[in-house]
């Protein structure tokens, strides 16, 4: 019960964070020099046309009224009109978000599937060559700018080896609209189109790897250090002293508790993953939210900027909420006491 309250409290707090976020971003968007009405009307519009549109868009009303209107819209899932695409931002995001989601999910899968074993191995063979290699690889992942990895991969795998495609989500010859979940790989499976699935995978690989490098490195590092921390705990010594085999001690008695710090830090790390997605999507022409957002920013498309930031923030907050729930499943202390220890 306390755990349930804990989650509910986190949920409410998340909502509050989002409200705060909306205020911050609304302020930023409104102090931006630039007139949305003029932008909407295009370069040749007359002053009179601009004034009319400003009125129609409510830009001549006091700031708090504008904010109230905006929030009112948000509650109904309405992010307003994009100036650039001339249609509802919500609709734009509905196509852009799944693309980003697919990329981020693939990234997380790659990063955890490779990162955790790397970290565990490095901790298990601490100070040996296994550890050294693991540490170098994970450090390189962390310190290399993701856009640089993306460029290098494009260069090596795309241009020189002609191994994998370097642009977009699907081959131009493939005509497929992911209209069920929005995720190409999932929708292709549902629709039973293995060709499309394979093509989607080929397109997904390089962006996902570029993006995963940093998270992978971070996961490996955290896993390693928390495994080492855990390995100094009495209960690990106890497991050893009771003759429980090394493998079981490592993968059961050490790994699970070491998930606790790993998960906690990953939640925060997720923000930088989303940030990097912005760069990687640009490099690979991935038609996701980040590409949409950067374009919105470059074109001062206010509603779109706010929409992107809000969705990104909500995504981040949601993931952290999810992590809290996961933490609860890993750590009975949270489940029982209903608080992070």
């Amino acid at each position, binding site marked *: 019960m306390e755990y349930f309250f804990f989650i509910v409290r986190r949920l409410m707090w998340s909502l509050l964070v989002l409200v705060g976020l909306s205020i911050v971003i609304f302020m930023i968007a409104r102090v931006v020099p630039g007139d949305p009405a003029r932008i909407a009307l295009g370069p*040749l519009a007359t002053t009179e046309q601009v004034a009319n549109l400003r009125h129609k868009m409510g830009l001549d009303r006091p700031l708090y009224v504008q904010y109230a209107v905006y929030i009112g819209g948000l509650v109904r899932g309405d992010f307003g009109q994009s100036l650039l695409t001339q249609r509802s931002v919500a609709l734009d995001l509905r196509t852009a978000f799944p693309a980003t989601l697919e990329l981020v999910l693939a990234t997380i899968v790659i990063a955890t599937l490779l990162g955790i074993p790397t970290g565990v191995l490095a901790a298990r063979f601490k100070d040996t060559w296994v550890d050294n290699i693991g540490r170098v690889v994970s450090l390189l992942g962390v310190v290399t700018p993701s856009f640089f990895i993306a460029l290098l991969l*494009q260069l090596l795998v795309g241009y020189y080896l002609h191994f994998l495609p370097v642009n977009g989500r699907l081959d131009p*010859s493939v005509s497929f609209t992911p209209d069920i979940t929005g995720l190409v790989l999932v929708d292709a499976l549902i629709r039973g189109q293995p060709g499309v699935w394979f093509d989607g995978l080929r397109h997904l690989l390089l962006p996902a790897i570029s993006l995963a490098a940093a998270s992978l490195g971070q996961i490996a590092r955290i896993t390693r250090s928390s495994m080492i921390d855990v390995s100094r705990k009495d209960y690990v010594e106890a497991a050893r002293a009771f003759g429980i085999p090394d493998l079981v001690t490592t993968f059961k008695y050490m790994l699970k508790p070491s998930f606790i710090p790993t998960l906690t830090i990953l939640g925060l790390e997720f923000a930088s993953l989303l940030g990097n997605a912005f760069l990687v999507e640009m490099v690979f022409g991935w038609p996701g939210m980040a590409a949409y957002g950067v374009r919105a920013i470059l074109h001062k498309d206010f509603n779109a900027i706010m929409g992107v930031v809000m969705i990104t923030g909500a995504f981040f907050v949601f993931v952290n909420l999810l992590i809290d729930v996961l933490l609860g499943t890993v750590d009975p202390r949270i489940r029982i006491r209903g608080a992070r220890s």
Partner: protein
Amino acid sequence: ATTVTLNVVQIFGTIDPAKVTDYTGYMAAVNLYDGLVTVDKDGAIQPLLASSWEASPDATTYTFHLRPNATFHNGAPVTADDVVYSVKRLLAIDQGPSYLFKGVLGPDSVTASDAHTVVFHLQKVFSPFLATVPLIFVVDSKTVQANVKDGDWGQAYVADHDVGSGPYMLESWTRGSEMRLKRFDNYALGWGKDPIDNLRFVVTNDEATVRSLAASGELTMTSEFQANETYTALAKMSRFRVVEQPTGTAFYLKMNTQVAPTDDLHVRKAIACATDYATIRTTIYPGDALAGPLPAVFKSDYLDTLKEPSFDLNCAKDELAKSAYAGKGPIPLTFTYVAGASFEEEIGLLMKSNLEKVGFKVSLDPEPWNRITEIASKVSTTPNVTEVFFGATYASPDSMFFTQYDSAASGTWSSMEWLNNPDVDKMIADARATTDPAQQAAIYKKLQQTIVDLQPDAFLLVQKVRHAMDKCLTGYNYVPVQSFDYNFHNYSWTCGN
């Protein structure tokens, strides 16, 4: 089926013909929609939905006779009522090209005299009127009316759906990444041999991506905005050829004539002299010489006695010495170009390097395009110098002069000179009120000389349009209006399927 894949460097904002303003938007619109008339490669007006038309002698009434067999993509016939509705809708929404018709057309100016005849009653004489008609695209009034929400003239619906009669139909559109069109079999003008069946516009301004798309065989045609290196790289691939044509688009350094220091004619002349035209034209951005405000494609109105400008740092120093700002240390100068366009940046760097040699202190401020349109709206925020391309929106020198130099048009990116010169204004108005081509030409030639003397711009070059395209793709011709050259009805695929 043949598919043409080409890259566009900006995203499609809207495909609503009443709201389209930009080059990219017209690429879609010209394929999805038809106007009453259109423009050919020489800027001449050609029949489209209207098979013929006539103007009243006083040039205030135009009557268009519609083709009887034209249908919209949903099969409904194109009627005079659709035309009337389309104009009303354009004026009511008051975006897109509607500014062209301010004071020329009112909501009741257009009437249908029968199912296939439309009459335009102009509110005043406007000689370039016929040249503006290609921008009025006809929408299927029934479908639009059926989808009106809260009196929005169907904006929400038309934003996503094609309601035109053009040669291609919208198949799918992923905003920000690609748009696919497919051929409209029952197109009124019919189809010749080897038509293009499918069109795919891929949005990317990344040179590397364009090259890799080309290398992998995905790309049929590039945009006209690629970097030199890309054209060179593609030309090396056996599949491609680079098609190059002179255009009606000129590339200017627009100088703000109302703020220091570019309010001084000598400063402007100094900048013009310090411009390394040859390097720009040959190395950075291939183009033809431009002597004055008007490119040479406007043959009959072009003043051919103007001298090509030349790069001369001594001249620049001399002019600067004559200016009011001389002798007070380096003269600060703001210089803006479109962020992300590498050739514009290169020109900026070149200009900075040369200008600083003669006594300026240049600050380079790349800005995104939208931001440029924004800062252009006020004298005080308009930079001293801005790199700007300008091409005619409709096939008349009026488009070049009015929009750039008339004081009535100031406050837009195309008039960042803020010229505000009464002589210039008068000449433009005179030309508009004349229907006699010879008289018009005389006025335009005088106007060109006047503007050159005022030096509101450094005239960099006439753009050459360059596309790398598959050798099988033929039919490309430059059209001096918007992106009308991307009307794929004119193209064919000569290699069979």
